[in-house]
Structure formats: C-alpha cells, structure tokens
C-alpha cells in the first residue's frame, strides 16, 4: 500500500523537476515567480504523501508549516521588485 503513495510522491517530484525548466527558461522574473507557485502546492502534496507512505504522522506538521509560509515569498517579490528590474532581457 505504501508503494502506491511512494509512487505518487515520485511522480509529483518529477513534476517539480520538470517545472524547474520554467525557472531556467522563463524570460522574465515574473515567469520564475510563477514556478514558485508550483513548488508551493506540489511540495505540500508530496510531503503529505510521504507522511502517509512512511507512516510518520508528524511530517504533516512540516506540510502545515510550509503551507503557512507559502505566500510570503510572493509578497516579498511583489512589494520589493521595482518595475524596472522585471524587464524582458531582450529589450
């Protein structure tokens, strides 16, 4: 039974790694920030599946902490990044 949840965790980890391509290739900082959204939700799901697969109840607390702090990086990006830096590098 835990094999299935581990398999799902592997699949979601692959999703994160594939999504990293957007961080590599996103032409502007805003595209890379969108990838941070991906890590937020997918990471939480992976941690929850790991908690079930390894039968360790307290990893859910790690997922809870991560979910609470997910929006802080986006807030920091939006409030501190002046519009001049978020420019397309080709222009």
């Amino acid at each position, binding site marked *: 039974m835990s*094999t299935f949840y*581990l*398999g799902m*965790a*592997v699949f979601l*980890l*692959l999703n*994160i*790694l594939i999504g*990293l391509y957007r*961080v*590599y290739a996103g032409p502007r*900082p805003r595209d*890379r*920030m969108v*990838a*941070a959204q991906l*890590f937020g939700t997918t*990471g939480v799901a*992976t*941690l929850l599946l*790991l*908690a079930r697969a*390894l039968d*360790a109840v*307290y*990893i859910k*607390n*790690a*997922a*809870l*902490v*991560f979910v*609470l*702090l*997910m*929006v*802080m*990086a986006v*807030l*920091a*990006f939006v*409030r*501190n*990044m*002046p519009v001049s*830096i978020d420019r397309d590098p080709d222009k």
Partner: protein
Amino acid sequence: MIWAFDVLLVLALIGVAAHIIWAREHFQAVVLFITFGLLLSMAWSRLNAPDIAITEAGIGAGLSGVLLMNALKSGSASRPGLSNKVLACLILPWACLMSLLLAWAWDAALIGSGLGVEVLAALPHAAFEYPVTAVLLDFRTFDTWLELGVLLAAVFGILGTGFRSGPQGRPDLKPPEPVGTWALNILFPFMILIGGYLLWLGAFAPGGAFQSGVILAAAGVMLWQSGRPCLAGVPFFWVRVCVVSGFSAFLLLAVSSLVRSQELLTHPDSKIWILGVEYAATLSIAACLVILAENCITK
C-alpha cells in the same frame, strides 16, 4: 520504490544546487534556493527527522526566501557566468571526490547509534518525554544558549548598520495592500495558533522552541509585509526586552544554578523553570528573526 524516490531526490538536490551556482541571474538563484529548501525538507522527512523537516520548511523555504528577495531589490540583476574552463577544472575533481565518498559509504558499517542509548537511559530523569527536546533543552542546554547568543549577535550586527532607519531609527512602513491584507487576516490567527501548538507539542512530539519561533516570526514578517506595523507599533524598549529575553533566561538559569552550588545550568525539579526558559527562547527567536527580515533591505 523507496529506492526510486531516494535516487530522484538526491539527483534533484545535486542538480538544483549546481543550477544555483551556475545561474546567471540573481533572481533565478533565489527562486531555486526556495526550491532547494523544499527538497531538503523532503530529504529530512525521508531520513525520519520530522523536527528538522519542520524547521527547514519554515526557514529554508519561507523566511530565507523573504530575506533574499528583500536583499535583491537593488543592484544589478545578473552576473557573468562561469567560463567553460573553470567548469571543466571543477567537474573532474568533484566527480572523483563523489565516487570516493560513495565507495566508502557503501561499505561503511554503522558503529552504533551514537549516543542514542545513553540518552534513552537518562530520559526518565529529564523534564520532557520527547528525546530531541530533552537533549536540546535539558542535556545540552549550553549549546542552545550559545545558539541564542549567535542569533543575538546577528541582530546586533544588523541593527548596527542602520540600513533601513527612518528618522527615529525605525524601519519605514509600506502602504497596505488589499489582497495581502485579506490573506493576512486569514493566515495570521492560524500562524499564532500553529506556533503555540508546536510549542506545546514539543514536550512529547516533534516541535519545540525553534519551530514555534520560526512560525511566530513568519507571522510578524507577514504583518509587516502587508503594511501593518509589526515591531514598529511596539515601543522599542519592549522590542529590546523580547530580543534579549531568551539569552538572559538561560543566563538567569546558569547564575541560579551557580548560586545553589550545583553544576552549571542544572534546573530545579519544578518544571516551571525549564518551561519558562523555553517560552522566553521562543519569544526571543521570533523577535530576532523579524528584526533580521525587516532590516535586511538594501536601498
């Protein structure tokens, strides 16, 4: 199946770390650093260490992201990449070292479980049931005391540079933002609640002063990011009191144990002492981290 997960996680960690070093734009490196924090939290979960997983999720993926983004505000956005010659000179020694390490680790036998047996034997005499908290706050109180001292030194350094001081020497506020305010209204009570829950949980399950301090600091930083006064609304005297409360609580404990001519940092049998020290440490960690996050902005 567990092998597939482990190998994928290790490759992901190494790949993301290499990408951080090799990335040309600073912002790319910051986003990758947040990812690295998440992957490291997964690694700690896999290694059966929930305490470190919780702390890594809080600091590595949350507060470090805010600190780095704040510091990224000014300055040039990119740097020249590593030249191919440098990469070629680095890759070969790295590959040799890694293969040596793997070959040694493959055959290495576990000598024992470290000090685990002694800790479990001494656990009934400790104030906590959970071995990790007992080691942190009971058996190795001196190390925790010094960690709080390091945090205090960092806060002194940041406050001494005075980067973000307004006219009264306090960081200025940004105007409030509606969606940030809405998210804050919902998340802030939960952050305080979960912080208190983890502090209480630390006595018998993964949790404790550090994890709780990190979440409370995140609550304070979110308050400040949404344009509400966090530490600026409190008279600076009380901010100073909060910042030094952890270190001085340990100091009081040490002095009292010396006065009673016992060994250093032995606490009396009543649990009030060690719980008071733990709560003071939580407050101190939260206040220090909020000051670090608020003041780490370059103009």
